[in-house]
């Protein structure tokens, strides 16, 4: 008999019941809530006269559409200029109060992007099932938790029943072997994976990331990788628990302590796939060949190494793919054959749940230290992932490094990752961004996004175009 994958183990331990057709009820340990996808769920609860099944399994935080300038933040709710955003943030506060749910309000130091806050507070624990009305919930899989994004109907379902109705996914292993080259980071690894398997490659699977490269990543780096599992089509990404995981979790506010810690950490050590576990699909990638990556199109799979150039759609034989390539190039205002290094940039955005943690900011700061942003860069900003990340960075003097280089230092939130607040990429402008999506209009109407690592974004800020960060 073959053993179990990590996914199998977590699934089995949370299975409440399963119908013959395979639809299952899965118990949910943690539900994370933000302002955008929850109001309609709370409204649904109210309308049907239901109450949360277990209020204390929930934690809420506003992040998507709050302002990020210090001036606006100082004024609290009334500082939110957009009336529609203000209503949403207010609705979150009110709904949480009404339902006895912990909500970290906008100016609480613990506030941050929901996927940065969860692990930081120890609200994300190994072996948990975690859901949130946000597709990048896959991030939490870096700690060996089964975490996925859900829609608003499911948010309401989880609030009311503490369960999620689901079918089991298939198991995929993405193994990244070898040792990374200097200057190559977790972001480059995950972009390279997506380039390899495509944006639908993981559809129907839970992806476990493994191999030497993943083992050697820090927990924050692993979060970057799992964050983008959804960009490869997989609702959940997972990484086995090891000593690094336990060290990361220990001592966090909602993590167990004392005797409970001893028992919990003992149990968590078994959160790895058995050596004889069966994966439905295995993809092996040679990590030593990965270069810093840059997306040039309007889907994360449209990615190339920094030394590469933009592909030529006329060489594509599949008519749908060809059409997509042409559409992407048209939108991006780029020509086939252009070298990645010659793409001129206008904006730099360092932030988002992919890359706004302290290590990301250190990585970027190291590159810009004692340098200045290039003259053609109109806006460059760093948006830390949480109040605590911001504080830590300021204690290390990173804010000074950024501001003296000419980069804005903002308050935590999603910001220009999806441009729901006023942080928007201008029409037709090119942005080197550490976020996770380069869809049309994602960072602002008509904006052109290039996804890169924090170090690559920082280097691009200094040079005004992409450069190979491993060569500077």
């Amino acid at each position, binding site marked *: 008999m073959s053993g179990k994958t990590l996914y199998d183990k977590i699934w089995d331990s949370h299975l409440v019941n399963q119908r013959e057709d395979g639809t299952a*009820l899965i118990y949910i340990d943690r539900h994370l809530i933000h302002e955008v996808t929850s109001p309609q769920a709370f409204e649904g609860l109210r309308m049907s006269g239901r109450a949360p099944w277990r209020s204390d399994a929930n934690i809420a935080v506003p992040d998507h559409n709050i302002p990020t300038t210090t001036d606006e933040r100082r004024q609290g709710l009334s500082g939110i200029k957009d009336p529609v955003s203000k209503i949403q943030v207010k609705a979150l506060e009110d709904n949480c109060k009404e339902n006895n749910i912990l909500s970290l309000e906008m100016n609480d130091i613990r506030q941050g992007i929901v996927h940065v806050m969860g692990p930081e507070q120890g609200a994300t624990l190994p072996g948990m099932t975690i859901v949130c009305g946000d597709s990048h919930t896959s991030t939490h899989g870096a700690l060996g938790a089964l975490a996925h994004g859900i*829609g608003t109907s499911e948010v309401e379902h989880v609030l009311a029943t*503490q369960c999620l109705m689901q079918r089991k996914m298939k198991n995929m292993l993405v193994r990244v072997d070898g040792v990374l080259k200097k200057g190559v980071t977790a972001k480059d690894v995950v972009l390279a994976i997506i380039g390899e398997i495509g*944006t639908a490659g993981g559809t129907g699977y839970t992806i476990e990331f493994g191999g030497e490269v993943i083992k050697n990543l820090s927990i924050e780096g692993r979060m970057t990788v799992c964050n983008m599992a959804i960009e490869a089509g997989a*609702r959940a990404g997972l990484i086995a628990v090891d000593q690094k995981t336990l060290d990361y979790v220990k001592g966090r506010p909602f993590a167990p302590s004392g005797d409970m810690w001893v028992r919990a950490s003992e149990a968590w050590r078994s959160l790895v796939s058995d050596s004889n576990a069966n994966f439905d699909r295995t993809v092996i990638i040679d990590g030593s060949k990965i270069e810093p990556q840059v997306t040039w199109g309007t889907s994360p799979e449209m990615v190339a190494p920094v030394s590469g150039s933009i592909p030529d759609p006329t060489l594509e034989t599949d008519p749908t793919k060809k059409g997509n390539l042409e559409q992407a190039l048209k939108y991006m205002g780029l020509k086939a054959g252009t070298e990645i290094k010659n793409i001129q940039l206008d904006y730099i955005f360092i932030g988002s749940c992919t890359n706004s943690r302290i290590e990301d900011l250190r990585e970027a700061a190291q590159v810009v230290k004692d340098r200045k942003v290039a003259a053609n860069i109109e806006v460059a900003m760093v948006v830390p992932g949480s109040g605590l990340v911001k504080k830590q960075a300021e204690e290390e003097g990173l804010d000074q490094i950024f501001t003296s280089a000419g980069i804005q230092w903002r308050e935590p939130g999603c910001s220009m990752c999806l441009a729901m607040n006023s942080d928007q990429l201008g029409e037709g402008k090119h942005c080197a961004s550490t976020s996770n*999506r380069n869809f049309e209009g994602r960072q602002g109407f008509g904006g052109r996004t290039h996804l890169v690592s924090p170090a690559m974004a920082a280097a691009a800020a200094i040079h005004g175009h992409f450069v190979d960060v491993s060569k500077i």
Partner: protein
Amino acid sequence: MKKFVVEEGLVMPLDRANVDTDFIIPKQFLKSIKRSGFGVNLFDEHRYLDKGVPDADNSNRPLNSDFVLNQARYKGCKILLARKNFGCGSSREHAPWALDDYGFRVILAPSFADIFFNNCFKNGLLPIVLKEEIIESLFKEVEASVGFSLKVDLERQLIIPVNGNDIPFEVDEFRKHCLINGLDDIALTLENSNTIEQFEKGWREISPWYFSSTS
């Protein structure tokens, strides 16, 4: 939830792969705290020539006459014919809300993004996966004949064209049952509340560390 038994209507082709949720409804409309009224902003960035704002009057906005939804021949369409990986991107349910509010009842594609696929069923929309060749030939037929419509019979799991052969399709038994009866997931789950309570009790004993209170 609206019941879905048989639906018949005009087919609108959207000849583009990887249509993402931002394409279906741009994020500025996510700021609403309501769940209805998104139909006028379906495909907003492609349908209109200017930028849409939430809660505004859309009746005088300049239309992009090249965009398929604005072509007279597809007025009143109910069935969306799409390409692979339809609905990729965000988990936001505004995408199916917008499609539903506009009047779509069925989406035909060779593949869908998982979360979107799920969300459709929860909102009374029927996503149907068909083989690439069938989708391809449907694109050709829609293109060739103005007024091309299809009947979708969920009970019998058949797509019935006016001329030509019926196309059978697969659908999850349980989802089919829920759609046909317009059943609400939460009520269904709460029928098992004893089982959930029992599970919870056992789980709390095995893994008490997941139950430390946050509130």
